[in-house]
């Protein structure tokens, strides 16, 4: 029976208290805070970070699907980048699921179909970084996060008992090519006639197929555009909202769009017991529903959702958020240079982070030089994959370097197992950076030179 082998969430470290947004525009705070992607993160890096947390779960996936409504590219795939960073073979099947909030669950359904078509493992990684229009209700609602689910056959976390999917043409929320921000029809139209109607139908549909009654469900994952939205659906379906509804983390993370069902599923699985029935639904231009039976309780692959909610850095101002999300632009900013040719040629060093090891003196080094950096051995280096954890050798907090979040910490890092890396630190308190501190590498957008996203690794406190 195909099912979920593992799931992981990635919540960026920055938070913006809704009170700061309300104060900026003179409105009312909806309470709580939202998770905000760092200025060097986007939906792809958020999904990547979640996917990386699932690395090392045995066999490699033979398909990778990326789900988002906010892909960093409108033409160019994200899934291929994820496959490259995960160092998957070129025969890996990749696809992006976009343009609807349902992309996350639709990618899961497509993943199940791919398994049925012969694939052994499918990785679905969702990331969302939606930009709410400034001075709008959704600006407070939207939060940023990533989540990843590894699908496969055999013994895993949960088996899929039934699925149900509905297509429904409905103008609830949309964004045209010309619009920068998602737009919704004003009032309760979408909540009642889109969300409530379609989601309820999908849930009923999957329960009917599996012949399961609502009260038998241990946990129900209903995506949440607002904190109140799922309550009415739960009532209509005869669910006990308090007992059965999975927390959407709206208060602490926000509405994470296409990533939300997967994020909530990861959280549900963290505390699920064997035998629990978990229902996951997704909404957007219709609805998807998947019914899962938990087969084994297991610890989370990476840090749990609640642990990630705890580790945070609060943005000091709305202005900083506006700078991160390019709502305000610095016109005089220096422009970066890049070369798609160099990024192509060095892809194996830059994405899965390969270095070299000298066959003569044993020095592990990055990049993979032609001649050993320590002993000048000219015979070429052995390819070696570098660790993504290490220790800070030295650093500086640079106020001269232009950044939306100064100062920029430059770091020299000794990686576990060898290799010295020089990169920027991110997600850190500059004043707390110190030599010998443990660091983990994190995949980020370094700059946009050349008119494209230049991705590479940074490091952050482990």
């Amino acid at each position, binding site marked *: 029976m195909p099912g979920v082998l593992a799931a992981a969430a990635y919540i960026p470290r920055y938070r913006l208290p809704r009170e700061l947004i309300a104060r900026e525009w003179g409105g009312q705070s909806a309470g709580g805070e939202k998770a905000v992607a760092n200025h060097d993160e986007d939906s792809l890096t958020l999904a990547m970070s979640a996917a990386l947390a699932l690395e090392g779960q045995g066999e490699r996936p033979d398909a990778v699907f990326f789900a988002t409504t906010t892909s960093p590219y409108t033409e160019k795939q994200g899934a291929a980048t994820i496959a490259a960073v995960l160092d998957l073979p070129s025969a890996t099947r990749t696809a992006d699921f976009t343009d609807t909030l349902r992309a996350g669950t639709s990618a899961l359904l497509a993943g199940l179909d791919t398994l049925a078509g012969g694939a052994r493992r499918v990785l679905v990684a969702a990331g969302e970084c939606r930009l709410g229009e400034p001075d709008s209700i959704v600006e407070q609602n939207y939060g940023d996060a990533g989540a990843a689910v590894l699908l496969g056959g055999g013994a895993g976390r949960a088996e899929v008992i039934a699925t149900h999917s509905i297509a429904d043409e409905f103008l609830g929320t949309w964004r045209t090519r010309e619009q920068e921000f998602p737009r919704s029809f004003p009032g309760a139209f979408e909540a009642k006639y889109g969300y409530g109607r379609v989601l309820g139908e999908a849930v009923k549909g999957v329960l009917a197929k599996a012949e399961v009654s609502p009260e038998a469900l241990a946990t129900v994952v209903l995506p949440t555009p607002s904190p109140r939205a799922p309550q009415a659906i739960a009532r209509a379906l005869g669910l006990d909202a308090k007992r059965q509804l999975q927390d959407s983390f709206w208060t602490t993370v926000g509405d994470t769009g296409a990533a939300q069902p997967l994020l909530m599923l990861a959280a549900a699985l963290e505390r699920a017991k064997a035998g629990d029935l978990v229902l996951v639904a997704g909404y957007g231009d219709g609805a998807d529903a998947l019914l899962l039976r938990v087969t084994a309780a297991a610890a989370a692959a990476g840090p749990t959702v609640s642990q990630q909610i705890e580790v945070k850095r609060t943005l000091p101002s709305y202005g900083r958020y506006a700078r991160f999300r390019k709502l305000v632009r610095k016109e005089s900013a*220096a422009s*970066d*240079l*890049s*070369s798609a040719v*160099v*990024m192509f040629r*060095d892809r194996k*060093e*830059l994405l899965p982070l390969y270095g070299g090891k000298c066959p003569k003196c044993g*020095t*592990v*080094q*990055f*990049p993979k030089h032609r001649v050993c*950096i*320590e002993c000048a051995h000219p015979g070429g280096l052995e390819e070696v994959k570098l660790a993504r954890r290490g220790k800070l*050798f*030295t*650093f*500086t*907090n*640079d*106020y*001269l*370097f232009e950044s939306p979040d100064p*100062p*920029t910490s*430059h770091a*020299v890092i*000794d990686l576990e197992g*060898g*290799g*010295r*890396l*020089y990169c*920027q630190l991110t997600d850190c308190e*500059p004043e707390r950076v110190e*030599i010998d501190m443990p660091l983990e590498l994190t995949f980020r957008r*370094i*700059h946009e*030179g*050349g008119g494209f996203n*230049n*991705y*590479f690794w940074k490091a952050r406190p482990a």
Partner: protein
Amino acid sequence: MNIRDRVAVVGVGCSKFGEHYERSAEDLVVEAAFEAYADAGIEPGRIQAAWVGTLESGFAGTALADYLKCFDIPITRVENYCASGMDAFRNACMAVAAGMYDCVLALGFEKLRDSGRRGLGTFGKHPVVGYGTTAPSLFAMAANRYFKTYGVTKEVLAKVAVKNHHNGTMSPKAHFQMEVSEEQVLAAPIICSPLGLFDCCPTTDGAAAAIVCSREVARSLRPDAILVKGLGLSVTSGEPYLKPGFAYTGFPATRQAAQSAYEQAGITPKDLDLAEVHDCFTITEILNYEDLGLCAPGEGWRYVADGRAAIGGEVAVNPSGGLKSFGHPIGATGVRMIYEVCQQLWHKAGARQVKDAEIGLAHNLGGPGAVGCVTVLANS
């Protein structure tokens, strides 16, 4: 090859260093070159070949030819990061020693203030590896590692700034003639932690020139020509941050260049009366004391704190005010150091004169400590 006593400096020139918003690179180059010709007592036509050091203010030999109109002779542009100037001088010396020429010009210049840039900008060439490097960041990382290794804090750096600003007040051509206090240095805004504003040299416009002759021609031009005793150059990795064995508590390029220059000169650091060293940042000067052998590793911070680097101390380090106070027009600096050592060895350095100076050293450092260039000069 040993350069000792084979070539000599017969004349030097140096433009006023500073923020020259009303003067061009041409103005500065012409000022320095013609001062050197006058100092040597020669006509421009006597120059048989020239070497010009500039990081990015000009390209090719034409960078000099078009300003000085010294057409139709061999001119080579030298670029070796911040050591471009002294390497131009070194190449000029070697060509004369090789017997190709008997009277040549070495000139360095840089016009930084025309760009409006903050500092030097980044050195990176790869789109993402080594991205975002700034000049102070590279040396700040050495400072933090030095502090960790030897258990000192940023207070030790301030002594260098205070000393060099003091020396600069006696240096009319320096960018700054301004005393600073330790308190001022420590309270300055941070540029790259732990380096504050006064730990960094300024961005400066300037040019400097030296005329190098064979020993025989030098003798015919002036009896007090300054003899070149040793020339060392060493190049290590321009990406030390990727070198697993790099300790960040000094620069091997300086150590190797110094050792070579001392050997050629047949001296030890104890024989020096003065040293013009590359204090692009205060931490760099402390590391230079150690790398040049003025004191033991880990003792550099104490060397300046104890006054041993002051004029009147063991070895007067940067009597000119150094890069810190004299300024650092990249390509000009190495030649400007030769200018200062010559002034000192001629005993023409005025209020900053090092008493009875006979042997002086000049040390130019390029890139992230990657290019070390050391010259030893003496007046007999």
